[in-house]
């Protein structure tokens, strides 16, 4: 770990109001990211990964509300900042790219205008020609050829991969420290996926960018990231360096995920699926949320939520950790 973490999330809790009442979708989530490092946030759909990212930037849907916790960025708690201050950070210090680049871009504005906006907003560039120059530079930084002509195109005239590059360009234009990527390659073809990932990796190296990479694709996560945090039913269940975690997962859910991922661990010829489905956000069981589906569950698992165990550089929330890994595990905190 290189010094104090750039981003430190502690006990972040977010809920959404629906017709049935408030439902907690991000539950006491804690993790941290160091400068220049990348963290994979993996889990199934509905596990709360996207909402976590949205909460960091405080861009929740109208029915969402942050209930508690801290999000420390450069030591400053983002959740207590006034709206004006957060807006200054967005796009400038923290960026975010979304899954579908087509819907991320305004369909009736040119690429050049949408890029130029950030320069006007964050760098106060009033001169139109100057904005165009910087926009060209930004496009070239994401490996788009013929950048000057592209400035006057509309999003529908570009391919999917190019649109995502434009979104990346918009986000890194002001040299942020942290980039949140919410499944940025899920909607792209396999080859384009690799290109985009390569681009992100290069940008990370060149600019010391910290990245949080949300994905449900473990293979991509392994390829791209340094650390991993596994989410299940709104909670983080395991964290650690990605190589170590994937080689020997501590939490049974992580174990099951990896067993189900073809290239990463399953015996050839068989895909082992985890039986059952995750609990709906409004109806989580008492105790460990994975217990109903866990093959190794014990009595205590259904009565009390597991403590958070910490060893080497890894941690997991599972009662079985001390027994399974046969390592001296330190209890970091008891959860309520």
């Amino acid at each position, binding site marked *: 770990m290189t010094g104090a973490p750039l981003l430190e999330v502690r006990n972040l809790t977010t809920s959404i109001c629906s017709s049935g009442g408030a439902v907690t979708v991000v539950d006491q989530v804690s993790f941290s990211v160091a400068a220049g490092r990348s963290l994979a946030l993996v889990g199934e759909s509905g596990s709360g990964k996207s909402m976590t990212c949205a909460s960091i930037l405080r861009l929740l849907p109208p029915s969402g509300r942050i209930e508690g916790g801290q999000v420390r960025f450069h030591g400053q708690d983002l959740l207590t900042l006034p709206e004006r201050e957060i*807006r200054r950070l*967005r*796009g400038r210090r923290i960026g975010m790219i979304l899954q579908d680049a087509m*819907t991320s871009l*305004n369909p*009736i504005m040119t690429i050049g205008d949408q890029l130029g906006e950030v320069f006007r*907003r*964050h760098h106060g560039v009033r001169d139109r020609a100057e904005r165009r120059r910087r926009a060209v530079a930004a496009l070239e930084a994401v490996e788009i050829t013929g950048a000057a002509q592209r400035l006057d195109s509309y999003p*529908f005239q570009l391919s999917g991969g190019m649109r995502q590059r434009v979104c990346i360009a*918009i986000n890194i234009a002001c040299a942020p420290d942290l980039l949140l990527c919410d499944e940025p390659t899920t909607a792209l073809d396999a080859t384009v996926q690799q290109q985009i990932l390569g681009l992100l990796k290069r940008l990370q190296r060149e600019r010391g960018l910290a990245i949080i990479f949300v994905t449900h694709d473990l293979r991509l996560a392994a390829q791209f990231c340094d650390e991993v945090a596994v989410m299940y039913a709104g909670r983080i269940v395991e964290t650690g360096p990605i190589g170590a975690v994937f080689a020997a997962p501590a939490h049974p859910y992580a174990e099951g995920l990896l067993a189900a991922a073809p290239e990463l661990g399953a015996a050839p010829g068989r895909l082992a699926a985890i039986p059952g489905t995750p609990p709906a956000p409004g109806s989580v069981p008492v105790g460990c949320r994975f217990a109903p589906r866990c093959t190794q569950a014990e009595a205590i698992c259904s009565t009390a939520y597991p403590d958070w165990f910490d060893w080497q550089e890894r941690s997991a929330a599972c009662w079985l950790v001390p027994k399974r890994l046969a390592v001296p595990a330190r209890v970091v905190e008891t959860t309520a």
Partner: protein
Amino acid sequence: MLIYLLKRLAQSAITVLFVVAIIFVVIRLIGDPTHLLLPPEATEADRVVLRHQMGLDRPVLVQFGAYLAQLARGDFGISYRFSLPAGQVALHALPPTLMLASAALVLALGIGIPLGVAAAIWPGSVVDQFGQIFAVLGQAAPPFFFSLLFVKLFSLHWAWLPTGGYGTPAHLVLPALALGWFAAAGVARLTRSSMTDVLGAEFVKFARIKGLAEQEVILRHALRNALLPVVTYVTLQFGLLIGGAVSVEVVFAWPGIGQLLYDSINNLDYTVVQAAVTLTAAIFVLINLLVDVAYALIDPRIQHG
């Protein structure tokens, strides 16, 4: 693009032609104008002579052919009431109606769009509630009722504005309001729903991610996209406004096409009826055409795609 335009133009011309034809036939059913032109003591024989002179006893098709030939020369015949060329009479009545419809449209946009945007940005607020009531009432009552209501309140009760007539800007206020409320209601509702949809779109979220000020997000990104369906709607509205203008003109004695049509129908001045209807149809169809073109210009996807 040009080919599309020409094709549409040709289609529109044919439509108008058909309208003229149908109206021509229908007018023949209205009644015999010879009653108007001859003194009451005239005998049937006199009428027959007059009909022959006016060519009213020829087969309808032949009459229509002759009429078309006349039209090609720009000749709509003579108005029985005014003893002036019917085309001239109709054209003379056009500007007041256009003025009224335009004023109403401006009001509709000026009131409806801000109201709709505000209602979308602050759902459930006082503005939203007010907007809903405004819209619901506006779409329920016919323009002529509003006209009477306004006359009662603003002219008779509080003598702020004249009860009718034409000439000063003051005369325009009440008719334009009466006509415009209806249009404003539709615009407000549509703007609100369109804006609400757009505000939930991903690119608006992305604009916020970029750190843009809320004002920029709403005006530069959301509004522009939200107004696209409003443009279509407004153009359809213009036609409805011309229609609604009829009853408003009658209430306020506003000398427009609607008033003219009303008088001419009641007085069996059929050349003027024809002229007025033809003119209205032509304008209506032309406006629709212009709007399609404008829409193509605003939405770059149509142009390039």
